[in-house]
């Protein structure tokens, strides 16, 4: 059993593995946030709450309708995306002309409402979500037992992140989205329905959050507080990566998960603070974030 700076290699690799799983969630969530901010200049504080709603949809589908994990992976994010459409059309669109801080405040209020409603009906202790049978069990990797489900999470996140990046950067739809938010009037003049693009972008961004929620359900308890626990870290990730950069948030999300894992081994108490320390440093040295462009 070799030691790495006083810590057995087993423990180190184990924590890194877990860190990667956490990082996958950070990546998907910050991806959604980055899409929304990069395209719409809205700081979507409701992102955490919508992630929670996605998890709850999965739970409700299972417990009230008997619909399992695989179907929920599709249905729940769509449900959350629909909520996103509703929010954008009824509230956010009136704020487009105003200072962007109002968007932040509105979504903050929405987050409180959603969290409050779910807390009212479901308490805050959390409900368990059963793993689908195919994922039960562990891989005995020697240095740790890794539950099968967590490998799936890592794989799925990387696929989703790559797919989103490809969609935004490499397809025509993505080009319309990017153009439409950079110069709405011009793009509108070309006959492209810009308001629709904007609504779809927001819906897509929160849909990603909903998807993360479904994936998180079997691991973390499905609790009304799960969104507020994670949202602050995700914001930090987005700021570090560069607030409009898709690639930035993916890379930073995964990297941060790993760094957190490392910190847990050597300096456990600081593991929750390390992201903010990094954020402060990055903002001092590279204000636009690691991959961002100053707006």
């Amino acid at each position, binding site marked *: 059993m070799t030691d790495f700076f006083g810590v057995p290699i087993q423990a180190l690799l184990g924590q890194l593995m877990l860190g990667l799983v956490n990082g996958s969630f950070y990546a998907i969530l910050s991806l959604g946030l980055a899409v929304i901010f990069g395209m719409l200049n809205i700081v979507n504080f409701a992102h955490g709450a919508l992630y929670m709603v996605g998890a709850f949809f999965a739970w409700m589908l299972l417990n009230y309708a008997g619909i399992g994990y695989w179907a929920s992976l599709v249905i729940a994010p769509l449900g959350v995306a629909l909520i996103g459409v509703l929010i954008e059309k009824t509230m956010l669109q009136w704020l487009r002309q105003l200072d962007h801080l109002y968007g932040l405040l509105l979504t903050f209020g929405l987050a409180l409402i959603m969290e409050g409603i779910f*807390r*009212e009906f479901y308490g805050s202790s959390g409900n368990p979500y059963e793993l689908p049978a195919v994922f039960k069990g562990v891989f005995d990797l020697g240095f*740790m*037992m890794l539950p099968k489900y967590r490998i799936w999470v890592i794989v799925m996140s990387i696929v989703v992140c790559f797919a989103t990046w490809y969609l935004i950067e490499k397809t025509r739809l993505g080009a319309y989205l990017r153009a439409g938010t950079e110069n709405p009037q011009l793009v509108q003049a070309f006959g492209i329905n810009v308001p629709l693009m904007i609504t779809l972008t927001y819906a897509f961004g929160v849909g990603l959050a909903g998807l993360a929620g479904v994936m998180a359900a079997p691991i973390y308890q499905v609790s009304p507080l799960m969104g507020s626990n994670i949202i602050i870290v995700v914001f930090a990730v987005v700021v570090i990566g560069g607030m409009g950069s898709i690639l930035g948030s993916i890379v930073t999300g995964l990297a941060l998960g790993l760094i957190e894992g490392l910190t847990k081994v050597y300096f456990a108490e600081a593991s929750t603070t390390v992201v903010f320390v990094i954020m402060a440093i990055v903002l001092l040295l590279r204000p636009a974030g690691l991959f961002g462009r100053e707006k």
Partner: protein
Amino acid sequence: MKSTFKFSVLSLAATAALTVHLGTAQAQQGKLSGDVVKIGVLTDMSGLYADYGGPGAVTAARMAVQDFGGKIFGKNIEVVNADHQNKPDIAKNITQQWFDRDGVDMTVENLNSAVALTVQALGKEKNKITIVTGAATARLTNEDCAPGNGIHYLMDTIALSNVVGKAIVKDGGDSWFFLTADYAFGHSLEKDTGDVVKANGGTVRGAVRHPLATSDFSSFLLQAQSSGAKVVGLANAGGDTVNSIKAASEFGLTKKQNLAALLMLVTDVHALGLNTAQGLYLTEGWYWDLNNETRQWAQRYEAVMKKKPNSNHASVYSSTLHYLKAVQAAGTDDTAAVMKKMQETPINDMFAKNGRLRPDGRMVHDMYLFQVKSPSESKGAWDYYNLKGTIKGEDAFQSLAASRCAALKK
């Protein structure tokens, strides 16, 4: 004219004398502040510990009032309740208003440990009675004791570690690693169990602290696994314990190490399911299936709450009933008089036999060692425990002589 005047004066005087006499007789029979006995149930209604106390505690208190007769000295007994959401500042706010403005005479339940410490200190300041059932920190009868005001009714970390800790070490689990909830209760439990382990020849390899209401225990359990200790002690409670055990099972920790749930109630076992919880050793101060009396009471509770009560609910019932009986015997709801009666009278009800309230606030009663049944052994829902031993109160709880309560030493 004069005679009628004399007559009226005489009759007036007679009426006055009679009223005063009757009035004092009434007062002697029952002097109640605000003409009512008000009991406040302060608990966590919807959060991490809602199943521990929560609405069940309110029901238990109401059952006690009902069994007492609903009235005292002809006046009503009122039960109010509030949700402190596990925040000491909300708990303090509510309790302060209860004492200052709403005329509440006694508060009961008061989980968690941080809340209990705040409430007990407040009770001492305002000279009211506070009964803690759902919190376990031993500081309530030691460093932060409030003799004359604060009562610690159900169990504490010392009793828990004396019963469970000792049993496991004797069974061969002599190296421990703790997973601790980062607040007063967790620290108390970790320290007291660690002391018991070491006193019985074991070692403590280390500990990791987690925030209250953690949902993902994977990284903490990984550290527990790498410590190589034979026993992983869970110095947490409620939802945290349930989640730790689930995660331990998910990560295969139980293949090579043993889990010790240091505080677990039957409602936690219900949440876990027998598949995951079987074989676990735990201690409780009461169980619904102990005897006919307990079964009867549990049935009445279940009719209202649709689930069986745990030892916390039973202790809320018992302590509230004991309080009301003491008010009756004392003839008043004045704190000192009632406390005196509560300490003089032993507790004999479906919760405890020959339980007694000590000067430091500790209610001493028997504790039971249980082991969780396997699914095949269980005959149905809530049939979860095998009784492995009864430990007398004097042996489970800290002795009065060893108490670090400064106010007692004077």
